[in-house]
């Protein structure tokens, strides 16, 4: 283990910080939420999630928050995912396949443009509590 110099230290700090921002809720460029209720999983939500994970890994992106949630209610159009780019309204995508989600990730999450043909609607349900 070579003795560290100052910039080695800084490098480690940056790298580990990226990997642990998730813990301190740092600011994110975008948030993708895959709806994995029981039906969602049955409809293949897991493959969507894995695809997204692989995308993040390859592109070494750490400022996109990837989470999952329970069933969003529209079981017929599963698997579904909501993409919320910082500062814009969340967009729900339905009937996703691995290919579709990759496209959405590239165009919407990274590019910032909504992929109309796959989108169900913009905005999110209101909750009372």
């Amino acid at each position, binding site marked *: 283990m070579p003795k560290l110099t100052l910039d080695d*230290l800084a490098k480690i*700090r940056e790298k580990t910080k990226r990997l*642990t921002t998730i813990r*301190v809720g740092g600011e994110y460029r975008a948030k993708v939420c895959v709806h*994995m209720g029981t039906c969602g999983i049955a409809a293949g939500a*897991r493959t969507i999630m894995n695809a997204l994970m692989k995308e993040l890994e390859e592109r*070494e992106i750490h400022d996109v928050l990837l989470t999952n*949630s329970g069933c969003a209610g529209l079981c017929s159009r599963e698997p579904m995912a909501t993409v919320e780019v910082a500062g814009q309204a969340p967009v729900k995508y339905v009937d996703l396949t691995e290919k579709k989600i990759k496209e959405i990730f590239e165009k919407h999450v990274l590019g910032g443009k909504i992929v109309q043909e796959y989108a169900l609607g913009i905005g999110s349900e209101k909750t009372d509590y």
Partner: protein
Amino acid sequence: MAEMAKEKAYRIHLMVCAGTGCVSNNAFGIKAALEREVKKQGLENEVLIVTTGCNGFCERGPLLVVQPGSIFYQQLTEKDIPHLVEEHFLKGRPVKKLMYTPPKEKTPVPVLSDIDFFKKQVLIALRNRGLIDPEKIDEYIARDGYKAVAKALTEMAPEQVITEIANSGLRGRGGAGFPTGLKWQMVRNAPASNGSLKYLICNGDEGDPGAFMDRSILEADPHSVIEGMVIGARAVGASEGFVYVRNEYPLAIKRMNIAIEQARDYGLLGNNILGTGFDFDIKIVRGAGAFVCGEETALIASVEGRLGEPRTRPPYPAQSGLWEKPTLINNVETWANVPIIIDRGAKWYASIGTLTSKGTKVFSLVGKINNTGLVEVPMGIALREIIYDIGGGIPGGKEFKAVQTGGPSGGCIPKEQLDLPIDYESLTAAGSMMGSGGMVVMDEDTCMVDVARYFLTFTKDESCGKCTPCREGTKAMLDIITRITEGKGTEEDLTLLEDMAHAVKDSSLCGLGKTAPNPVLTTLRYFRNEYEAHIRDRKCPAHVCRQLNVYTIDENRCLTVGKGCDLCRRNCASDAIRGAKNEAHRIVQEKCIKCGVCYDVCNFGAVKVD
């Protein structure tokens, strides 16, 4: 580099609390269960399980915080894990049942920062608790770890570091509250006699019963202490440091060793730190189980391998300490505060706390309190806020009576002083002291005379026995108080007790002896009526002193409700109860040894005690 190097990103981090409290509550069992379930659900590439230091909310251990979103799960058992993993991690639905529900409310509070226990806390010494794996240096560095060392070693001159600490207003967290900057200045100015050898000591003896702040810091964030010591060494020109940890803290010692090893590997400790040519290394010395070795000169004697007993000061350790060399001794928590002061500057640190007591203080909140745990609060916060807002009030709907701060050397602060701001001067004015931070909450069922007796028994056993007042005085005071709790106390005993307390406080050699009478003096000052009750009416208001209790049976309740179940008679050890099945029972007072078994056993509340 840590195995994180493969850039493997996880979408969920499970922060499992592995402080000693939770570990003894099967935290590692929970962690194993989590690993099993995560593997079963095939989520091992998405979910990272991290063991952290003490999270603080010990009452609700074993604890788990799910990131992102810092969802707080508490009092987990291994059988909850399968459901939790599937529901929350697989399906993304947090499990309400396992969340924290405040005592009086129904709906759980999922997010950690919304929980009252955490809301009012300001984390400085405990800034990394629950957020990093203490056994991975990278995670500490990620939290701006060793930034202060870099700054101190490359951008600041030693004198500058000292003035920064002085301006911050930081005072010793060991209990006396001696201004840290002044102490560093004294050690720096002390003429290094033969050779420029100076020493640094981190006092992790923490002998107070019920105090576990230092333990939690060492277990949760060992690097903060190491970084603080490197900065301190640079400032005063010390070349060797010792961390004196109680042998009763094996986990803290293990984590400290790992941290020291990793720091050395990274060149942040040992020779030529960060290539700046500054050498400083740290060794761990384990305490031998003597409370008195928390006192600096006794600690030094213990490190030198001599009999652990204090010596007269001056000369203070700053001039002639370890092996008669200038030595800088600070408490674990003091060291933990140093890096952040250097990193964020004295002005920022001085903005927290009161005029004379700056920054925050970590308290171990224990006793009759709902949220037992580790709390770090800014100086100047009122006692009421700690007990009610953070502590969640007194369990069982009991009345708050007093709080004992400063451990066996501290004193009891009564209900009337609830709005007392927490800082060195006001606590000392109230007759107690800041001490290391033990805060024992007592409710109406606590007998203050018995509390004084408990703490005196502790100091009597822990007195090193060197000087007469402490060795003989604590025993004498204990004999008197024990007599009082047995109903044999007289008026003269009270005055003698008070005189003894003042004499021991005045003429003892070291801190232990000087503060041992505090519990007696404060309980006499605020709860003299209880002493008088014990002496004059031979009564213990809180029914704690058994010898003074009188047990009687409410005969008609025993007959009508209990139908003479005869349970008490059968359990009475001294055959003091008369009566048979379906008959009212009666206690023969002469034979009754007041053990209280009948009171405990009777299911129908027929046995009365007054």
